[in-house]
């Protein structure tokens, strides 16, 4: 392999950067923000948990679970992607007593990349 006379590939670099810029924004879906907010405290029981992701997510492979401090699931198990905003995943909640709750999510973005996470919120 004789690599001694290879010039620095400026053209290749420019082409790759151009392709990167021009390509569709398919990517891993990261949590952008949530309601109730990550680590936040609310004074009234929220009716649902909403999570906005940085990418559109696949409904069939995306989930949210909300557990109380004892680890018992308290959500209504009706997780769904918003009809108008495919990057918004939601799940309904019953009336929650005061306490700290853990939200665990798993999503698959539209290009099949998987991500997961969890956070807590507190009801006063």
């Amino acid at each position, binding site marked *: *392999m004789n*690599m*001694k006379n*290879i010039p*620095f*590939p400026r053209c290749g*670099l420019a082409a*790759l*950067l151009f*392709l*990167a*810029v021009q*390509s569709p*924004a*398919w*990517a*891993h879906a*990261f*949590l952008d*923000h*949530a309601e109730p*907010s*990550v*680590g*936040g405290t609310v004074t009234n029981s929220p009716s649902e948990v909403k999570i906005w992701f*940085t*990418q559109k997510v696949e409904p069939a492979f995306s989930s949210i679970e909300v557990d109380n401090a004892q680890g018992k699931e308290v959500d209504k198990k009706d997780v769904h992607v918003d009809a108008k905003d495919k990057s918004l995943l939601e799940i309904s909640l019953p009336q929650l007593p005061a306490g700290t709750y853990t939200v665990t999510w798993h999503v698959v973005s539209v*290009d*099949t*990349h998987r*991500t*997961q*996470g*969890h*956070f807590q919120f507190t009801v006063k």
Partner: protein
Amino acid sequence: MKKRKLSVIKNWRGRFAATGLVLAAVGLGTAPAHAHGFVGDRFFPPTIATDDPFATDELLLPSISYFKSPADDGPAVGTTDLGFEFDKEIFPKFALGISGDYLIQKPDGLPSAGGWDDFSLSAKYQLWENVPHEAIFSVGAEWDIGGSGNKNVGADPTSTFTPTIYFGKGFGDLPEALEYARPFALTGTLGEDLPTSAEPNNLNWGLALEYNLPYLQSEVKDIGLPAPFKNMIPLVEFAMSSPLDRDGGETTGTINPGVLYENNDFQIGAEAIIPVNHATGNEVGAVVQVQIYIDDIWPKIFGHPLIGK
């Protein structure tokens, strides 16, 4: 990271080589590449001066750095390093890579010269992961291909093999009382150069300590950071090389404080390069690096192993 001996350099032409050696010793000679590395909830970003533990599809292009080697028995040499690295996951958790650096070297008071440093091939395997504790351990090796670069910039005519272990640990498992420490993560490498010539064996060790603001926002506490700060990861890296035998001299290395910015399709990072002693250098250098997330840009081609699932 390539590390070679400084004391063999005897003349100004050799100083060109010396610059390459110092750059290699401080971890700039072969810039590491990385892509999306996850352990559970934790995303470990590609770091600049030290390699990460993930065996994934990665394209680093370009890495641009400047560092000035110390004047010893000749003029000090400033080197601009234009580097790339490409890695491909072949089997699940096993990747092969190739990297190269084009060096432009300018000795004080003398004309500049340019050429390729030796190219390198690498292999890495993710051996162990612990999702709840955001921990990972990998093994790998790098082969600096002797004679594949240009002699006028000090490319070594002989090969060096560097078996290396890699680790990563996120601190998301800390107790609630320490919640603001949970975004911290540490990655590190430990490897030994095994040169095929009479050069000394070196112990190469590196650490990267980062504070992941996206992790803070999405896992711990949404403190309302606006863009672009909510996509930033401040970090400090330590890239060191300690000769083990053959009168290899003192430990050299750098401390690199900097910041990474995450985008859907790429990461851009910048660091200062602060030499730890006079044997490494007398001036602060700098590096800017772009990591293209090819698994996100071309998901049908990249982001999965060639063989197996």
